[in-house]
């Protein structure tokens, strides 16, 4: 129904999956209009991978993401292309781009989108708010939408268009922000992305001392220990244990979530697990919509009883 532009993301020479996910949906939404992808740096060389795009607009510039430079350049391209809809990932990079583009272009920004569809002459958005506890539907004829990773299949973004590469030029900002270097994560004792069984603990744990209880359960089940973001922020477990958007993506055979509410950021990292068992005292916790099995019990009671049953 209109022209849709996707701002792609890449890291270390590879497009991130979110780029393909958005592109597949952009192709569907364009429905006769142009489906364009904006790429940065040397990714021009891989533009043919963006198969769902009609046009791949290649901006050049550095491969290293720079909030100021990328938003400044993207803004100029969008101003000259004036698409009806701009799709940006609800990611670390997207957070630096979408709100800035929205204000500069005087377009509404719609965050946390798990769905973007057309509805008459407008677009219709479904946003996951309040940690996934509420879904808000909204419409706008033109917008910048931030799409949650995992909302669409990446495969659809790889075919259907012609992916014709075009060079575009823009100014990359005034250099107030300078990229220094990438900082790799510290090597972990356990690589939870390789684990078959994970026992993951969230905010429901309440205190650092109680981590031991869950640790013991994990050992008894021959599982590795994982957690959600608040546990890492509190300094109770290392970053290498964190599952979710800013942490790791895991797909164990069994994922046991203890005291994890299931905010979209966490689900992004674990929803492909074969079997998800959630234990949470809050019966309205979003995790129960994604889990295969659930129990509304106190996690400590469960840990204790399991221990007794297993020994």
């Amino acid at each position, binding site marked *: 129904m209109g022209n849709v532009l996707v701002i792609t993301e890449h*890291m270390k020479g590879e497009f991130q999956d979110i780029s393909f996910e958005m592109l597949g949906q952009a192709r569907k939404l364009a429905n006769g209009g142009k489906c364009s992808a904006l790429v940065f740096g040397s990714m021009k060389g891989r533009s043919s991978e963006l198969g769902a795009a009609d046009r791949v607009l290649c901006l050049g510039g550095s491969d290293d993401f720079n909030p100021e430079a990328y938003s400044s350049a993207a803004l100029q391209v969008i101003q000259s292309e004036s698409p009806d809809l701009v799709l940006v990932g609800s990611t670390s990079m997207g957070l630096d781009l979408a709100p800035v583009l929205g204000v500069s272009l005087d377009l509404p920004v719609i965050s*946390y989108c798990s769905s973007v569809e057309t509805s008459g002459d407008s677009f219709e958005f479904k946003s996951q*708010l309040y940690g996934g506890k509420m*879904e808000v539907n909204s419409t706008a004829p033109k917008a910048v939408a931030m799409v949650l990773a995992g909302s669409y299949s990446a495969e659809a973004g790889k075919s259907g268009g012609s992916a014709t590469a075009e060079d575009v030029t823009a100014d990359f900002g005034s250099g107030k922000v*300078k990229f220094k270097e*990438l*900082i790799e994560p*510290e090597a972990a004792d356990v690589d939870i992305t390789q684990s078959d*069984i994970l026992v993951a603990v969230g905010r429901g744990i309440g205190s650092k001392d109680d981590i031991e209880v869950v640790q013991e359960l994990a050992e008894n089940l021959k599982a590795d220990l994982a957690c959600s973001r608040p546990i890492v922020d509190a300094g109770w477990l290392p*970053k290498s244990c964190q599952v979710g958007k800013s942490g790791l993506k895991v797909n164990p055979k069994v994922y046991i979530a203890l005291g994890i509410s299931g905010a979209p950021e966490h689900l992004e990292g674990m929803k492909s697990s074969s079997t998800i068992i959630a234990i949470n005292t809050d019966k309205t916790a979003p995790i129960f919509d994604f889990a295969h099995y659930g129990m509304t019990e106190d996690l400590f009671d469960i840990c204790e009883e399991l221990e007794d049953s297993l020994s």
Partner: protein
Amino acid sequence: MKIAVLLKQVPDLAEELEVDDSGKALDTEYIKFKLDEYDEHALEEAVCLKEAGQASEITAIALDGDEVDKALFTSMAKGADKAIKIMGAEVEGSRAGASIFAEAVGTEYDLIMTGVQSVDDREGMMGPMLSSILKIPCLSVVTRVEGGDNGIVVHKEYFGGLMASFDVQVPAVLGIQAARQTPRYAPVSKVRQIQESASIEEKSLNGASETVKSEVTSMAPPTKTGGAKMLGSVDELVELLKEKGVA
């Protein structure tokens, strides 16, 4: 370096949330509000900068609202030097929030720190919107800030523990994901003491009027997609774990 920390009260997600009669917004009558967690991290990182001798003064700023005085006094108990409450503004959404905060901070601060996002910002994130209005740089998902001679060094987190560092000229806006350490706790006695000795400056601002360009049509808890099969006892759980080859 003068720092402004922008704070916001958000619904406590531990509470049961309900939709109001309009079917488009949260029923806020009975819910409890608390300081946005990312904002707490923003304040903590600011206080750490001051303790390291890299910041001279911290001002906590919030819009008037439920329990805002308590949040501001608590911020002072944790290390903010001043507190400002913005009065008289009808603010809904991050875009309108960014406009009014832009008016409130002006060019007075070298660094504006706030939480990277909040659970209710449907209209984008306030920090980067504010930076766009002020025409200064913004970095989001920040986990560390260090003061330097000609600006600051900032760590931004991507995914899987991967980060990048940036040199940033001030003034700048930072959306904080996590402080370098767990946000400190202010004992009630200390908050009370501050309440008696310090005061909150009240600033009346109108804010720019914003044209609504996206319209909320409905709000509802997510449709249950079948969801989890609920287990009635630990015995059932043990059975299941055995079946899946775990126990």
